[in-house]
């Protein structure tokens, strides 16, 4: 446990000094500032106003940016560390491989989750200072969604880093994974369904298996509980899960996917060349 904590701390320290982290923190901090600057708290759309409106927009934007950012920075730094000799030196010390791998996972999770979370809290604090009502339930749900999203894409990133032997290959593979998940989002799925005349259940199954789609649908559900925007597939989803069930699915499923993929990555990491 001592080795895991010290490795997590080490990864966090490395991340805080990395250029990508500044860009990352700047993007999410800037996002909150921009949303305030454009007066989003004063606007009213579909019944959402004040901080709720801002948070809905923030979470939608986060879901567009966070996956690709997490994937690319994770594989770049892990594969880069292996290539540049950092693994050679650090793994020559008697740190258990499990502590090294999962310690880095924890450290990386904190470095990708905290800026997004802190930016969201800053938005809430700012809104509260201006007299807006604080939507506590929404904040808790969004925080849980961000945790789930971060773990999911970190898991994919760690697996890709364990499989790829060079930074270039790792980055290319990570980008490809993101692109595939993007291709199976709702609008494209609808297009496929119409064109290929696939059974709706197949399309819905694909949508439920795609973590990016799961997040989109979950975030959508907050301001569109009947999922009108989603079209006919909404019936299947709501019949099978119900609103609460789907929210639980959107939190648990991506987390499990992330941890399972990271677990496969760990198995691969410890059973092949470490450097």
């Amino acid at each position, binding site marked *: 446990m001592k080795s895991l904590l010290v490795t997590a701390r080490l990864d966090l320290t490395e991340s805080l000094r990395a250029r990508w982290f500044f860009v990352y923190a700047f993007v999410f901090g800037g996002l909150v500032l921009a949303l305030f600057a454009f007066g989003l708290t004063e606007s009213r759309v579909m019944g959402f106003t004040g901080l709720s409106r801002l948070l809905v927009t923030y979470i939608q934007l986060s879901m567009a940016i966070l996956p690709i950012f997490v994937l690319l920075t994770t594989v770049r730094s892990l594969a880069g560390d292996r290539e540049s000799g950092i693994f*050679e*030196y650090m793994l020559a*010390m008697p*740190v258990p491989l499990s502590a090294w791998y999962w310690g880095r996972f924890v450290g990386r999770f904190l470095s990708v989750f905290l800026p997004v979370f802190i930016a969201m809290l800053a938005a809430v604090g700012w809104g509260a200072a201006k007299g807006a009502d604080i939507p506590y339930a929404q904040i808790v749900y969004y925080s849980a969604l961000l945790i789930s999203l971060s773990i999911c894409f970190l898991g994919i990133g760690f697996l890709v880093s364990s499989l790829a032997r060079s930074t270039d290959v790792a980055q290319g593979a990570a980008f490809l994974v993101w692109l595939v998940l993007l291709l199976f989002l709702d609008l494209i799925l609808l297009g496929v369904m119409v064109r290929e005349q696939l059974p709706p259940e197949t399309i819905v199954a694909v949508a439920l298996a795609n973590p990016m789609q799961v997040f989109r649908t979950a975030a959508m559900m907050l301001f569109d509980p009947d999922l009108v925007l989603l079209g006919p597939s909404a019936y299947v989803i709501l019949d099978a899960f119900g609103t609460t069930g789907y929210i639980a699915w959107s939190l648990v499923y991506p987390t499990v996917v992330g941890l399972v993929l990271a677990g496969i990555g760990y198995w691969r990491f410890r059973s092949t060349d470490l450097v």
Partner: protein
Amino acid sequence: MIEIEAVTKVFRRTRVLDALSLTIESGDRIALIGSNGAGKTTLIRCLLGEYTHGGTIHVDGKEPRHDRHGVLGDIGFVPQLPPPLKMPVRDLVRFAATVCDGDRGEIARIATDLGLDLEEIGSRPFFKLSGGQKQKILVAIALGRPVRMLILDEPTANLDPAARRVLFRLLAERTDMPMIISSHRLDEIAGLVNRVVEIDRGRVVLDDRVEEAGDAAAVQKCRLVTARTDEAFAKAIAEWGFSGSDEDRVWRGEVAGPDRMRFLGMLARYAGLLADIELADKARGGGGPAGPSGPGAAAN
């Protein structure tokens, strides 16, 4: 004791280690030499449990790959190229001391010996230090840990003569533990070892005992006279800590015993300029150089 038995490592179709076998006893201080691509670093990585491989490696009966703590806890390692870590020096030392059950004070003490104040550079990112500073920190971490074996990959590559002298002294204090010192050139590390193993294309092609060089911590006093003043020579000899007199024609200084071959190699570049060379053991010579003139004096 380390037993390496028919170790084979293949990268794609290239056989980098080819059924290599080697036994290293507890008193062995080995110069692991060979050209680029001979398999030195691959062998070291196998020893450190970083590569999967065919054959077996046992360190005191334990497999590095499966008993990492048992094996790596006893090995101090200095890599050839310092890792480009962004973390502050202080964090690196803390990490190493924590996972290796080491003492930060001892690491700092060795760093100070090598001419580096860890307090002063503690907050600086490791990768922004000079090559010599990085090397000193890695050496301090390796020697500041409670280890029973040392693996050093080109340990003197970035060190100045003064730091090399301290390193030789520190290693001389540890001659009871096995060491593997990898280098392209035997002359650079000959004074530290008692056995030489040469690898070529993944196989041991030479395994021989070498004459003990005596006290690896020995220091030799040196006096040089040049035929004329030369700016390039003055710069080169000043890097060895020598001071000049008589219009920079007479130079005096000290050379670490194991470093004398390297020193003579440097002098060879100025052979036409040198009028006189005196080199003698400091302890034996007492007040100053007393040996015969000429390069042959270096054989003391």
